[in-house]
């Protein structure tokens, strides 16, 4: 299927919103893929980090928003430390998560942790994963 590239305000609005939220210039990315090459979770992802940023550049909002990748990022900042253009990919990921439908389902909510597991888990795991993946 041919992907139709949008032009005009809608596309710009999406990109500008991502840039505003993340504080990163997504057009600085020249798609070397180094973020993906070092990403510990890349093998689980449907879209690699560099593909996420590429889709943002192209303004393909729906494809970005429905990617599983958003909830596989562990914010380990390996991508950030290696990016030759100084883009903090973790911030871009966070910005995309931020604009997901606020009424939508949590990607990972408190209900998904069994009481037994909760007893064993360090507090910081629960605080951090809900901060990242729940509304």
């Amino acid at each position: 299927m041919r992907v139709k590239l949008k032009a005009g305000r809608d596309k710009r609005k999406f990109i500008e919103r991502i840039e505003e939220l993340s504080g990163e210039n997504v057009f600085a990315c020249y798609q070397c893929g180094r973020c993906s090459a070092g990403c510990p979770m890349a093998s689980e992802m449907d879209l690699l980090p560099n593909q996420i940023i590429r889709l943002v550049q192209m303004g393909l909002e729906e494809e970005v928003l429905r990617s599983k990748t958003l909830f596989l990022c562990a914010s380990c900042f390996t991508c950030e430390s290696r990016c030759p253009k100084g883009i903090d990919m973790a911030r871009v990921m966070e910005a995309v998560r931020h604009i997901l439908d606020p009424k939508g389902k949590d990607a990972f909510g408190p209900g998904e942790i069994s009481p037994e597991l909760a007893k064993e888990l360090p507090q910081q795991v629960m605080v951090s994963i809900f901060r990242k993946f729940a509304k």
Partner: protein
Amino acid sequence: MKLHYYPGCTLKQKTTALDISTREAMRRLDIELVEPEGWTCCGAEYPLTEEKIVGLAAPIRTLRQVREEGGDVVVTTCSFCYSVLKRANKAIQDDPLKRKRVNAYLRDDIQIDPLTKERTTGFADYNGEVKVLHLLEYLRDTVGYPRIRERITRDFRGLPVAAYYGCRLLRPQKEMAFDEPDSPHIFEDFLEAVGCAAVDYPFKQECCGSYLSVSLPDAATEASYRVLRSAKMSGAKAITVTCPLCFYNLDHRQEVIKAAYLDFSGLPVLFFSQILAWALGVDKKLLGLGEHTVPADSVFSETPATEVRS
């Protein structure tokens, strides 16, 4: 002397080993750790979007409290707490807009005078006056390795130990400024200073899977396995961490890892503070070894506890 210390929530609940061994070790160095009055959870994750200003309020409130108590330095051990406190502090120092907005949230906090119990509001703005340090930095720069060496009473006799940095200590480097993200050595230098032999291995700064161990356990299992395997292949007899979450993934989940990867036979996981405490002569009972899933006793018995100095 007294030193402000932010333990964070996990150290008070599930991972007391890190808290207790840290306190005991520091006591041996004549340093009493003081917790800021009324500290709260730092939030564990530093807010990465420009809009989530509120996420900065909790860590900044704690830092302000340190200042109010006359402290100019606060140390932490947990990598997540260190990351959040340090980054929030830097944001307040560097970004006037964030400084203004966060202080606007915090200005009307209620202050209770400990003597008169009088309730007042109106804190002075916090501008990043407190310095956030990881205990490893404090040991290196303020205590100094020579002084630690003087106090050492037990000899590890060059026990090969792997230092595991994980993600938060090192990255993003511009904000953390902890060490070179791809060739760090502060942790190794510490291990060498207390008598271990630091093992070089390529996965020391790779991710353990972090909080994905809850949402995507298999991926985290693999990530942790690779770290443990790499350390073990390089000859380590134990791996040391600073972070309760790394500890959980590498230690508590090691049975799962062993079941999934048959070539891996197990590796004790230790907190750096346990190593320090042991070297300084702290009683084994105070190391919190009961919290370990992988028996770590061997590390402390394999090398006979020769009294190098009486």
